[in-house]
């Protein structure tokens, strides 16, 4: 956990509206656990005021430019352009100065090796699942169910396949893979592998549907949530979600940035509107 000024190594559009950014990030290979995130800031730019949270997609080493130098570490984030901050980000280039605060938050618990693992990713939500898959493929059978509205929302599937993950794509408009919701695929897979544990990240309606399915079947589920964040370190208390047992009289709020962003399903309160109102697209 630290904050440092660094630079962008590359920033490419990988699908319409989706970008992949590589950032020089010393120390991250050792530090970063699957499911963690960074608070990202463009250096020397006043707006937007607050940092933006992004899941760590991948951490790695650049080929060393010279025998005697240690190889450089980087992380990658994958982001969708949705508002003022990500609009500024899409215009950044190699060498542009940025700041990273992280790695932050709890990570996924990869569980026991023998189990079957099912990852469910909705659109940009699949970003934090890659490092998890990387970690699990060695010892477990990992399947990725990737859903999106249309073909443009299906990203980085090849990367998962290269890891040896079995991938299943579905789109709501049928423009790629199977037509329909990713949750339908999930039900089929759980019928087949009833002991699998599930790891999900994506838009709230998807997460809620996944939770319902897993609850009915008693399937172990971990979800990665998004919440509006100011600090990312547990200081502002802006990012809370309702925890298990939360009521108006006895409220139980958990910080998404420190207790999350990954939660075991049973830690959370799944009543309607329990989750921080990110659906509204944040504030502008």
């Amino acid at each position, binding site marked *: 956990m630290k904050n440092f000024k660094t630079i962008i190594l590359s920033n490419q559009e990988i699908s319409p509206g989706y970008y992949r950014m590589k950032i020089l990030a010393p120390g991250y290979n050792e530090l970063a656990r699957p499911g963690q995130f960074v608070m990202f800031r463009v250096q020397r730019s006043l707006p937007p005021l607050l940092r933006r949270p992004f899941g760590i997609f991948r951490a790695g080493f650049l080929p060393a430019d010279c025998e005697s130098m240690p190889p450089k570490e980087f992380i990658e984030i994958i982001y969708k352009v949705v508002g003022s901050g990500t609009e500024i980000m899409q215009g950044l280039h190699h060498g542009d100065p940025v700041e990273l605060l992280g790695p932050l938050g709890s990570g996924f618990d990869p569980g026991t090796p023998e189990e079957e693992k099912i990852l469910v990713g909705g659109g940009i939500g699949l970003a934090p699942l890659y490092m998890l898959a990387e970690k699990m493929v060695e010892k477990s059978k990992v399947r990725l169910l990737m859903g999106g509205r249309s073909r443009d929302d299906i990203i980085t599937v090849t990367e998962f396949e290269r890891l040896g993950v079995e991938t299943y794509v579905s789109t709501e408009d049928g423009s790629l893979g199977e037509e329909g919701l990713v949750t339908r695929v999930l039900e089929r897979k759980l019928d087949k592998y009833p002991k699998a544990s599930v790891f999900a990240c994506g838009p709230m309606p998807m997460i809620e549907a996944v939770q319902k399915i897993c609850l009915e079947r008693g399937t172990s589920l971990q979800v990665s949530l998004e919440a509006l964040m100011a*600090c990312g*370190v547990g*200081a502002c208390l802006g990012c*809370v979600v309702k925890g298990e047992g939360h009521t108006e009289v006895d409220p139980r709020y958990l910080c998404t940035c420190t207790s999350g962003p990954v939660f075991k399903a049973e830690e959370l309160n799944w009543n309607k509107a329990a989750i*921080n109102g990110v659906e*509204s697209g944040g504030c502008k």
Partner: protein
Amino acid sequence: MNKSEKNILQPKMAVEVAGLRLKNPVMPASGTFGYGEEYAPYIDLNQLGAVVTKGMSLNPKAGNNTPRICETVSGMLNAIGLQNVGVDAFIKNKMAYLQQYETPVIVNFFGSTQDEYGEVAARLDDVPGVAALEMNISCPNVKHGGIIFGTDPEAAFAAVSLVRKRTNKPLIVKLTPNVTDIQVTARAAEDAGADALSLINTLTGMAVDVKTRKPRLANTIGGLSGPAIRPIAVRLVHQVVQAVQVPVIGIGGISRAMDALEFLIVGAKAVQVGTANFVDPNAMATILAGLEEFCRDEGIADINDLIGSLEL
């Protein structure tokens, strides 16, 4: 090398506020720095003039429904709802951590009745390591139809007087900017026994999601903070400095040394940095370095010579 040149190489940064000697005038604003611990990995707490904690109430408070925050142009709205662990849990679980550091700890607190204010102050009174109390009077007075203490000079006077009786710690009263004449509340707090005043707390604001037609905060209304509010804060601090004898701590939109200097020049003895911590967890260290550099560049041997140096 003569004496004055030597001074300027290392300008004196210590200030005195409410009888506390602070090694420099820079400290966090309550609610933006958690209990200190959250930011310890990013900034050396020993560097700071003081640590100011999240606001404490008698009983734990769960806070408001979500969404609680929202970015605005050069600012943010928050309606955290004063979520906190409660004063007893704070004393038990959070003070030990802070006592590892040499930095004075200022505990921010609030209540929903004047008795509750008094009770929280009393519980903090004999806690070792608590250097001073900061009383947040921007809270609704449940016994008086929810009118904010700080907008009602009589209620503010009564609450501060009561707190004054129940604590021997230095007492800083934190004023709300949402008033017609801040000099009136400032004097009420001073007359009631405040050792210092701090301001500003957030300005009341609101934002609307035009797509959903809903307020962006579950609480509809929230507090505006950040660089956007600085000119209002500087004006209010200027007015309060002229109205009272006790020292004033300036707060509001400070993110650079330049910003802190505006407050010091109009007469604030110290400053608190709030929202800027979220943007840059190292902001206070940068501000401090900038203040020292400014003093050196301008030949100011002691930062106290700068305080109140406004030329009208």
